[in-house]
């Protein structure tokens, strides 16, 4: 979904469909962090993933769906060297000048990414993809949360 990197042994794939409400963000962060911890993704890298997903899903809800409750698809590919993130909504980001803090969401994603952060129009909505490093050092997310 996010790029053409072929899967290798040990790669994993997490796909979530959220209801599309801001109240779902905290449970999403918890679920993603648990999965990343289970795959020995470091705490710092997991923090980055959770934050970027939070920002992209928030954008999807507020700019894609304009606050309406509609599904948001979250896809995380856990690869040996990096983590591919894709967030898809069912709307179109028409607002060219989002609020200042919302504009920071994509900036945060780009600042933390190890590859390009791209926004694509799809047949059903808008999809944002980015790549984050899998390793930033430190203990795993699972170990660090206990």
């Amino acid at each position, binding site marked *: 979904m996010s790029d053409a990197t072929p899967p290798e042994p040990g790669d994993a794939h997490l796909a979530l469909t959220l209801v599309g409400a801001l109240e779902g963000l905290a449970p999403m962060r*918890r679920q993603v962090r648990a999965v990343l911890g289970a795959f020995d993704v470091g705490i710092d890298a997991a*923090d980055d993933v*959770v934050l970027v997903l*939070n920002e992209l899903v928030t954008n999807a809800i507020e700019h894609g769906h304009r606050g309406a409750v509609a599904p948001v698809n979250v896809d995380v590919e856990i690869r040996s060297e990096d983590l591919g993130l894709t967030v898809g909504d069912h709307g179109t980001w028409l607002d060219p000048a989002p609020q200042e803090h919302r504009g920071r969401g994509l900036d*945060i994603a780009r600042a933390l990414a190890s590859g390009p952060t791209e926004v694509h129009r799809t047949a059903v909505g808008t999809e944002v993809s980015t790549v984050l490093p899998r390793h930033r050092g430190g203990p795993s997310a699972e170990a660090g949360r206990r």
Partner: protein
Amino acid sequence: MAPGPDDDEVVDRPFEVEIVQTARAVHVNLRGDLDDVGSAQLDVALDALLRSEPARTVIELKDVATLTSSGIRTLVRAWNWAVDRDETTLVITGASPSVRRIFEACGLLGILWE
């Protein structure tokens, strides 16, 4: 992928804003996730507090687990409020390395007291 009891205990703790008045400053101690929900709560608390124009306010981030752009927006708004006033000082401090990185990513390290 239902969360277990341990996950609920650790992660579902509600965001908390504690305001402590000392002789030297008003301390705003934050705990939990400063996200959309937390920042809305902090907005209300800071609006009420800053209307009284305390001479020195310290926003303590050491127990903030997650900081999102909504939280950044709330902190920047408070910072800008203080910058516009000569008689008041606002300090934002205690950021963990992961929270500090968010300020850095936003180009806002300058508002952190380190």
